[in-house]
């Protein structure tokens, strides 16, 4: 194949990409997914929390991040329910997030748990850092009502949860804004923190783990697939892995072939 033809007409690459995206979805290959230490650290930390711990699941992403972050939310919620935690859902960064809080609860299934006693959904609060700061200092002053309009005093679970001091962990699954969460909630109140982030954003969060400000991170759909394997709840992230593997491999081969073509042209000139 003349590599220079591919440079002039990218449709060949588009076609190969399309095939590699579509075929593994229809005919899964089942490439093994090894569990990395970085994901296992998240699991191990959550396992150390006792039954009845108060855990915030902060869902802060929109439509663009759903393929990477929705599987993480579902896996973490599954694990939190297995451990019988008291779960507080909230969104402090992305105004689309409440719809994904609902979607996560529906996907995992909350029928065996009682609203107001086992879990509460506070919805979205605008203001980013300001909302985070208010939430951390006095939850009842910020959130007078839950997402469904129920006064917070009528929710039994919230009687003992008034500030960030009452939280045993914060599982923050966000498309961005992690730095503000750390500045406004984690560091001033020393809340144990777990990140759930897109793969592209994970590199910026490693310093917080190295400094001990966060206990661990779930990185992209690969991290979610690993977490699904650990807790034994195979889901959408695992289904994505064959596609991710093949497309990544294709991009690597494309880079190598492109540079071979470039060097060959350079040599001829």
């Amino acid at each position, binding site marked *: 194949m003349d590599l220079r033809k591919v440079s002039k007409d990218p449709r060949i*690459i588009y076609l*190969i990409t399309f095939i590699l995206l579509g075929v593994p979805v229809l005919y899964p290959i089942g490439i093994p997914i090894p569990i*990395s230490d970085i994901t296992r650290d998240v699991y191990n930390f959550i396992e150390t929390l006792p039954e009845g711990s108060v855990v915030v699941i902060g869902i802060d992403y929109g439509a663009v991040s759903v393929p990477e972050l929705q599987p993480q939310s579902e896996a973490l919620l599954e694990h939190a329910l297995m451990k019988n935690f008291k779960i507080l859902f909230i969104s402090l960064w992305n105004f689309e997030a409440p719809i994904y809080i609902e979607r996560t609860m529906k996907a995992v299934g909350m029928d065996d748990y009682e609203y107001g006693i086992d879990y509460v959904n506070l919805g979205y609060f605008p203001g980013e850092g300001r909302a985070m*700061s208010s939430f951390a200092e006095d939850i009842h002053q910020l959130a007078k009502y839950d997402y469904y309009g129920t006064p917070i005093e009528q929710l039994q679970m919230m009687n003992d949860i008034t500030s960030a001091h009452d939280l045993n962990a914060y599982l923050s699954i966000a498309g961005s804004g992690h730095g503000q969460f750390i500045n406004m909630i984690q560091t001033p109140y020393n809340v144990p923190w777990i990140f759930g982030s897109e*793969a592209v954003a994970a*590199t910026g969060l*490693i310093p917080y783990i190295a400094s001990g400000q966060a206990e661990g991170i779930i990185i992209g759909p*690969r991290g979610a697939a690993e977490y699904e394997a650990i807790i034994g709840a195979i889901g959408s992230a695992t289904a994505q892995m064959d596609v991710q593997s093949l497309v990544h*491999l294709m991009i690597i081969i494309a880079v190598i072939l492109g540079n071979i073509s470039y060097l060959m042209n350079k040599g001829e000139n």
Partner: protein
Amino acid sequence: MGEIKMRRKVPMVILSAAGVWIIIDYLISYPVIQQVSLTLRNWSVIIAGFTLMLGAISTSILHGKKIISKEQGWGYSSILMLVLLSTLIIGIVLTPTHPAYEFLYFNAFFPMTTTTYSLLCFFIASAAYRAFRTRNVDATILLVSAILVMLRNAPIGQVIWSGFPAIGDWVMLVPNLAGKRGIIIGVALGSIYTGIRVLSGYEKGLTGGGGE
């Protein structure tokens, strides 16, 4: 001229006073200071909610003018206004938890957004072949690092060779960590400097004047 000066000075005084009060609250634990600080922060959450509405109002005015004067593209503006108003009315009247709102979101907005972003995959694949070149040493190091991290992230990396995840982890945990740490510290120092300028009134851009 005097009126303009007052219009800039009064907001700056309010801004500085509120900012300093919140800093004092962080440093000194005293009930009255805490309560006022918390009230100020809760007020700012309410104001932030209004700014979301402001975006919708600005968009409506812009596209409304286009529709009325039938400028080029007024048809697209009409569709935008129709969708904006229907989503707003459904959300307010029926609430965002209603199936009608979820239907609109997951059958219109969600597929369009994810489709638009999915196109990036094809462009990246094309750019990988046509644009990512090892023109110099820096570009070569960047490309090699990117390939190693990709092989760490994709399960197939470990299938090809069991050493790839360890190398990818090293790239993330050593050179990446060092660089990102420097960026975080630099951003933090810049934020402190900007904050001091804003609170001391030197940053006049916030009230329409030029900075010093």
